[in-house]
């Protein structure tokens, strides 16, 4: 807002009394914690009362204690860092490829014809099924884990980008063309911002897929990583550590979601969708 007065509608410059909105929104954000908190409380209560056997699901407090112990001796940090590194690397590679190929397929007819059919076929290949081949191709080291993450991250980004590009209002592209924008500038000013919401969604799904792939990957010859930690715990039936691993994933999910939400709020200020009623 540049100023209170509108050039051609000389509306009285009475500042409106109560800017309620921001307050309400903050309130709402806290309120969103209600259901997770309720779930955790119910879980703890069930565990304490003995309704939920400890080997079925350890109490949150037990899990937290385990977490504190592992965090204190540095184990959790090391594993987390390694997993994060792998996930980041894989996301970078898979996401980069998905951006390039998705843009090619979404924007160019030739790209669509060449790229999309093989991707459509590859889309269904489950990572786990590929593991034996990947072991032969890329070995059992870090590259296997990163490849699996990249594969997992590729598809949601590719598909959402492709769909996002296809969804862009053709009329806006035309308008940009008449404004003298070349292909590159149209990409930057019209296609990219237009496909951004879809891209964000793809990124969310990709982050989830990355973790999933990492768990698969960290089963093969890993000595570190949250997936390894969980697998090790599984083998020894340390349910509390397994649940701790899940909790770590859930918190990472929440953190990445907050990050993406923040990025969305920054870049998608212009949007107004169907407000929930």
């Amino acid at each position, binding site marked *: 807002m540049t100023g209170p007065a509108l050039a051609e509608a000389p509306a009285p410059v009475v500042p409106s009394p109560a800017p309620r909105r921001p307050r309400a929104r903050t309130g709402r954000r806290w309120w969103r914690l209600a259901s997770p908190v309720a779930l955790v409380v119910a879980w703890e209560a069930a565990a304490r009362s003995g309704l939920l056997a400890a080997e079925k699901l350890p109490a949150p407090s037990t899990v937290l204690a385990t977490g504190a112990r592992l965090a204190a001796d540095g184990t959790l940090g090391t594993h987390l860092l390694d997993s994060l590194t792998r996930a980041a690397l894989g996301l970078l590679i898979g996401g980069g490829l998905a951006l390039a190929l998705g843009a090619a397929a979404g924007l160019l007819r030739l790209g669509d014809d060449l790229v999309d059919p093989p991707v459509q076929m590859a889309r269904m290949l489950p990572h786990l099924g590929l593991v034996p081949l990947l*072991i032969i191709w890329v070995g059992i080291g870090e590259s296997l884990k990163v490849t699996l993450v990249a594969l997992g991250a590729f598809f949601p980004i590719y598909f959402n980008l492709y769909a996002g590009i296809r969804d862009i209002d053709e009329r806006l592209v035309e308008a940009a063309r008449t404004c003298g924008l070349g292909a590159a500038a149209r990409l930057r000013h019209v296609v990219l911002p237009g496909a951004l919401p879809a891209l964000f969604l793809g990124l969310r799904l990709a982050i989830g897929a990355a973790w999933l792939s990492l768990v698969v990957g960290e089963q*093969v010859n890993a000595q570190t990583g949250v997936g390894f930690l969980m697998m090790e715990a599984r*083998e020894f039936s340390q349910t509390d550590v397994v649940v701790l691993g899940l909790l770590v994933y859930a918190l990472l999910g929440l953190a990445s979601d907050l990050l993406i939400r923040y990025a969305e709020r920054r870049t998608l200020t212009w949007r107004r969708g169907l407000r929930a009623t």
Partner: protein
Amino acid sequence: GGEATDARDGGPLRIGYQRFGGLSLVKARGTAKNVTWSLFESGPALTEALKAGSIDIGQVGEAPPVFAAAGKIPFSVIGTSEPIPQGEAVLVRADSPYRSFADLRGRTVALNKGSNVHWLLVKLLEANKMTLADLNVKYLKPAEGRPAFDNGQVDAWIIWDPYFALAERPGVRVLADAAGLAGNREYVLAAPGAVKNRTDDVRAFLDTYRETTDWGIAHPAERAAVLAPELKIPLDVTTRALARSAKPLAPVTPDIGRELQAIADSFVALKLVPGPVDIAGRVDDRFTEAFR
């Protein structure tokens, strides 16, 4: 296609090991020089890496070499251990009515497919004049078998150490072990390229392996103290498992070849592996010195 990749002269020797196998003590004590370690959750996973040329030497139980040979994976059997019949067992809940393995007829039994326990199952069936059809077999990995067993979804679980020792708690009873049925030896496998091109490195490593194993047998308390944190298992469980499962190494002999071949033939007869398997021919005795 291992040959090309696994013969890299000069580089560290790539060792594949499993939790609690004899090699983990070498890893834990850090006595071997110029090696890299890869951990595998089971024998089949380790032989898969052998096939991919990702490791030079690995250690597995009884059945995996047979499955690997059936899968035409190139490797040779270069060493073994003394039998460890107390290292694997059939577990049932203490309050269950089963008194012998034969009582399990028609019941559900969980075990890991393609591992040493698979051979034990075959021998148990044979000894009790049963067939696979008499049991409801569920193939579950150790990590899956434990919750299934603990929650009563299977009646019995055939498992090896250390999972055996971990599961051995009040309320759990050992129905039978491998004594008199299966050898349950450990086998050292090597990629052909390593055997051919890096004979000296392999021999040096095996020497270290034997020295470490012998030290462990001589110092059981220290061994458990070293291994417990490495394995992340409580010390008492480690001690108990090691007491029955840590055996001296042994050289491969024609007898060993015959023992393995018998396993293979039996698996073939039961159609557990496809086609005839020649495992005796995989035995390579050029490193026997290191194991004596």
